[in-house]
């Protein structure tokens, strides 16, 4: 910094620590709540330090058997549905966007600009504003309660296509020139040159899209009418649906922790790519 300000530095740390505590508090309390029995949670005020029943609670929900379980499907299954959905959306978006960006940047074909704007305009129509008609299309395809229905309508992504397009434009022309002179086919060039160069962009997009896929709620709410196709985020919602006094808060909080764990790990451990992905996709 410009000059030394011991007092201001102290205030900075104090305020940041306070901010962090307020931000983390709900997550901390969920963690505490998940270690108590249903009786402990019925007292007022509820405990704010860890209890003894963590193992029991997590075992109960993961296996879906034991006292207080209301859903027919164990949380382990819900996590599996979430994982498959999140990975399919992330990989699907990355693959189709890489291909279409490659076509748009490295080929000249009729209606190229029209195609480009056609993809661009999808940015403006998030699934939330067209839920009813999109639901009807998916129902007509018979994709309700299937992984295809949960993932494919969310896969098309203008942001990913743009990110790759911008990146391909920065790749030196000499590389394509050299590949052509060596007699490489377009797909060989894509596979052996372009793809290895795109690794960082792919990692950045993966983090963003994995979180996007894992946290989907409104779409599965329409797509999954059977419990076996509930992602975990939706499962939590059905656990809190009853009357306030009947909610098993200890089990709800254990489920919430499990629902947060995978995306939180991805964000913290892949922090470098996450920040890059956020900033780049918004350019």
């Amino acid at each position, binding site marked *: *910094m410009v000059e030394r300000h011991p007092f201001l530095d102290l205030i*900075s740390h104090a305020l*940041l620590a306070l901010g*962090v505590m307020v931000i983390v508090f709900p997550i901390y309390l969920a963690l505490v709540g998940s270690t108590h029995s249903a009786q402990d949670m019925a007292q007022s005020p509820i405990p704010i330090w860890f209890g003894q029943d963590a193992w029991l609670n997590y075992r109960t929900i993961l296996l879906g058997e034991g006292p207080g379980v209301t859903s027919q499907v164990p949380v382990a299954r819900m996590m599996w549905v979430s994982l498959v959905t999140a990975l399919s959306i992330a990989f699907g978006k990355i693959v189709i966007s890489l291909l279409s960006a490659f076509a748009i940047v*490295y*080929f000249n074909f009729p209606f*190229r600009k029209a195609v480009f704007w056609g993809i661009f305009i999808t940015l403006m129509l998030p699934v939330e504003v067209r*839920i009813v*008609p999109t639901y009807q*299309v998916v129902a007509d395809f018979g994709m309700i309660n299937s992984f295809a229905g949960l993932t494919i309508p969310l896969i098309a992504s203008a942001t990913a296509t743009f990110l790759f397009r911008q990146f391909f434009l920065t790749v030196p022309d000499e590389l394509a020139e050299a590949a052509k002179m060596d007699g490489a086919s377009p797909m060989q060039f894509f596979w052996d040159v372009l793809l290895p160069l795109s690794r960082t962009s792919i990692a950045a997009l993966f983090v963003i899209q994995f979180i996007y896929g894992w946290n989907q709620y409104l779409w599965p709410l329409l797509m999954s009418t059977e419990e076996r196709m509930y992602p975990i985020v939706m499962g939590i919602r059905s656990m809190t649906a009853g009357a306030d006094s009947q909610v098993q808060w200890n089990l709800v909080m254990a489920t919430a922790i499990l629902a947060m764990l995978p995306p939180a790990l991805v964000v913290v451990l892949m922090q470098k790519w996450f920040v890059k992905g956020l900033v780049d996709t918004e350019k």
Partner: protein
Amino acid sequence: MILSSDKKVIFRSKWLPWVLIAPQGFIILAFFFWPAGQALVQSFQQSDAFGTSVQWSGLDNFVALWRDETYLESFKTTALFSVLVAGLGISLSLVLAFFADRVVRGIWLYRSLLILPYAVAPVVAGVLWLFLFSPSVGLVAYVLEKFGVEWNILLNSTHAMTLVVIASVWKQIAYNFLFFLAGFQSIPKSLVEAASIDGASVWQRFWTVQLPLLTPTTFFLLVVNTVYAFFETFGIIDATTKGGPGKDTAILVYKVYFDGFKAMDLGGSAAQSVVLMAIVISLTVLQFRYVERKVNY
């Protein structure tokens, strides 16, 4: 966004580019253009709840929306909600980023913890805050009661709105914080130093040097936060208040969902979708005009 800077070296093939475009093309045709067109068509139609009879009704659906008190209320609710979410979210994260920019030691820890809410799904965020504010088990509700506040989100609409705003701001702070932190760090140190040599205090430097240079970031975040408040907070509202008490926290997106799937009013819901599309399109255009300006900087 301009196509002028394309490649000079290109490959030649009549069919390959079409094959490469096909997967994305098929998906956007089937799941974007077709449904969006359907929404437009349906917004001019009237159908009964079983979908057996459909007839054209011109602008009836839009006129009905305009006359519908609850829809206009929902507009006001959405406006209030998004102003609160964007305003609070942006100012709080600006403060946090300002101090995080000054700190050298421990920044990794602060940042890792502050970005955690980004990973939390809106519904889960809603459940976490409901757990704090629920009248029966909530810790905050308990403390408030000790201070003589009768806290009840199920009866009091101010309480309900407070809860959904807090949960929504909490979820979005991580995102704003990262952009502001990147913004602060991209300000040349020499500018801040020059101001400091001229005798500007930390406070003056913030107002006269750093904040003006952060205007583009702030404007960008304003648009993003408004879009977030409009569309992505569905899960938070569904998990905490379900639009209640009455319809006092039912924002537009919640109403589209409710009218389309719970009340089965397809025409009305489609008309609402069309209005929402118009709003998103204007916001996106606004955002891109900003992007153009940034490029010209």
